[in-house]
């Protein structure tokens, strides 16, 4: 039975039988893969803590009949600061889910791995966590060819310098010029300042700089709405943690007034 070593981030895990887990790992070398962690649901297992979401591992895997087996691992980073902040957990979970939904198994993408990892690090010390998260969304979309068009009108192709558009259309996939904004049904507000911020987030690769970016309330609101629409239009499946994150951004994720008793 062949064994291999890899750096892996645990995206999620589901219980298997009484004592085991199936973990979804995003590995740098092999892409996304599912592996069985035997005995990992017992509190005494050395795999128990390591096979939880958001753990960065150096993992030893053995090829199995159906699923590979996670035989040993060492925690490289547990992101304990992320775990101690509700808003950061939601954002990190959302990033993992988005990546999970937009990748297929065993399709290596070291760029996506590095991007996710650096996003988790930046989230831990970002002045504006949403800047780090939107940068992840934009840069990941660019990696898979879904990036919104921000330098020209997405309908007529007219050059739009410095984000000077008149709105954003999810169906067109980018910024619109004045006449096109009027002629499009799903035009959303996107002020030039917010569009410029999106361009900056799309291109900023320096972690230190990303962690220092600040956004105005308008930028925060417009970018979140525009990206949400852009993603929804391109994804065939729902990203479930979106709903949570949006609710959290609107306030302390209050209970809806009339549900339940």
């Amino acid at each position, binding site marked *: 039975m062949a064994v291999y070593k890899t750096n892996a981030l645990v995206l999620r895990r589901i219980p298997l039988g009484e004592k085991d887990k199936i973990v979804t790992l995003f590995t740098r070398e092999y892409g996304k893969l599912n592996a069985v962690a035997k005995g990992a649901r017992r509190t*005494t297992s050395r795999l128990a803590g390591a096979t939880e979401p958001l753990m960065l591992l150096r993992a030893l895997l053995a090829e199995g009949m159906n699923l590979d087996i996670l035989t040993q691992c060492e925690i490289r980073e547990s992101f304990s600061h992320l775990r101690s902040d509700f808003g950061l957990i*939601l954002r990190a979970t959302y990033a993992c889910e988005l990546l999970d939904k937009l990748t297929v198994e065993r399709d290596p993408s070291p760029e996506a791995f590095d991007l996710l990892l650096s996003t988790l690090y930046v989230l831990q010390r970002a002045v504006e966590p949403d800047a780090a998260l939107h940068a992840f969304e934009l840069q990941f979309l660019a990696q898979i060819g879904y990036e919104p068009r921000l330098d020209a009108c997405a309908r007529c192709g007219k050059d739009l310098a410095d984000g000077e558009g008149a709105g954003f259309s999810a169906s067109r996939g980018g910024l619109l010029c004045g006449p096109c904004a009027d002629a499009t049904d799903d035009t959303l507000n996107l002020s030039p300042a917010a569009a410029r911020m999106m361009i900056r987030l799309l291109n900023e690769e320096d972690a230190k700089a990303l962690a220092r970016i600040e956004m105005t309330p308008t930028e925060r609101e417009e970018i979140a709405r525009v990206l949400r629409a852009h993603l929804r239009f391109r994804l065939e499946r729902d990203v479930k*943690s979106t709903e*949570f994150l949006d609710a959290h951004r609107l306030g302390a994720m209050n209970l809806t007034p009339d549900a339940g008793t």
Partner: protein
Amino acid sequence: MVQYARPLARLVGEFEKLPGIGPKSAQRLAFYVLRLSEEEGQALADAIVEVKRRIGYCRVCFNFTDQEVCDICRDTRRDAGLLCVVADPRDLVAMEKTGEFKGLYHVLGGVLAPMEGIGPDQLKIRELLARLRENDMREVVIATNPNVEGDATAMYLATHLKNLGVRVTRIAHGVPVGGDLDYADQATLIQALDGRREM
């Protein structure tokens, strides 16, 4: 494929729906039932029916009970100023087995799980807040699992409960009693270090 007589196939099929039971185990259980005396078989069937008919949720704490209010909630010897919040009735049982906790419980019925779309409205959080508004509690102990969902739930609850002016604590996580530091997994050690106490 082996063809069972229809009633037997039906029983195998029902067993297969149970958690952790595959086709082989389902077949083994079905054959076991087949060998039971009629009385034994009836007793098994009755137990299942009775559980379904009589067990419901406690109106106060949402633990399983066969009454409107469960035994723990009605026990006047317990400390009514101390409340332990658990995710699941099984966690309540685990806490009770220690014999150390003398307060009352509140069962959430799960944990916040963003990826599964389980939010505050799906849990008994509103009920918890109402309970704390109506009763004077000294302290709320949050006893959720030490994982992403358990952490998120604990933090969410802490924010909302502190608004009510109640003291909120969370059970400590660390090296298991009788465990060997050398053998403890890293995640546990990291948490144990985070939760270290002054001596």
